[in-house]
């Protein structure tokens, strides 16, 4: 069977929900960041697939995917810098113990 747009979109939805489980249900902060990367890649697949099947001549989806990759790289950098700063202070990367701002 030919791989159609719906296949790519369902794959994107599946990866997105896996990323949501990773963000909400895991304790290690670095796993959270990896799950956020999964989320961003899932939406990139959706962008590129929609661009290729609905408006192939104009590569707008790929332009947006490039921007998402850029923002993801910047966000991982700053996020890991924060993780290292917190680890230096608290010696843990468990979010159930880094609850300095919780009530």
């Amino acid at each position, binding site marked *: 069977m030919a*791989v*159609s747009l*719906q296949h790519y*979109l*369902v*794959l994107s*939805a599946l990866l997105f*929900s896996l990323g*949501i*489980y*990773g963000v*909400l*249900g*895991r*304790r*290690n902060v*670095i*796993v959270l960041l*990896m*799950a956020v*990367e*999964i989320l961003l*890649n899932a939406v*990139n*697949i*959706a962008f*590129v697939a*929609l661009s*290729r*099947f*609905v*408006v*192939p*001549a*104009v*590569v707008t989806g*790929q*332009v947006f*995917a*490039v*921007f998402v*990759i*850029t*923002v*993801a*790289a*910047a*966000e*991982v950098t*700053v996020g*890991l*810098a*924060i*993780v*290292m*700063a917190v*680890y230096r202070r608290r010696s843990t*990367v*468990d*979010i159930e113990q880094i609850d300095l701002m919780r009530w």
Partner: protein
Amino acid sequence: MVLLLRDLFRAALFLITFFLGIAGLYITLQADFLAAVQVLIYVGAVAVLILFAIFFTRQVQQGNPPNRFRWPALVVAALVFIALAGVLANTPWAISQEAPPAYSTGALADALFHQWVLPFEIASVLLLAALVGAIALGKEE
């Protein structure tokens, strides 16, 4: 596997496999330049950064335990998947029969530097801000 493995290092390696797989998907979607960018940036920079952080914060006893919200998280993830996949698969998309450009680099460059030049410049300022921020956060007192 990325989320469920106990050993964080193996999980990061699975993340690298994930990024390479996404690059392969881009190639099947005729997005060749984007596949190269994906491998370069995600595998080459983001995954390396994550590996650095894993080695820096190595906690061999715990590894990758689940949260106390794991069952609500599972339910929420399942609901999101059902809602998203249901909507996306059942929407009548206006699929066009044109062929995409053979090499996407030219079309991407055209779009990036004519129509989307302002977000492009703002993205470079964002990268500068991220760089400065990461250095400022990483300094030892």
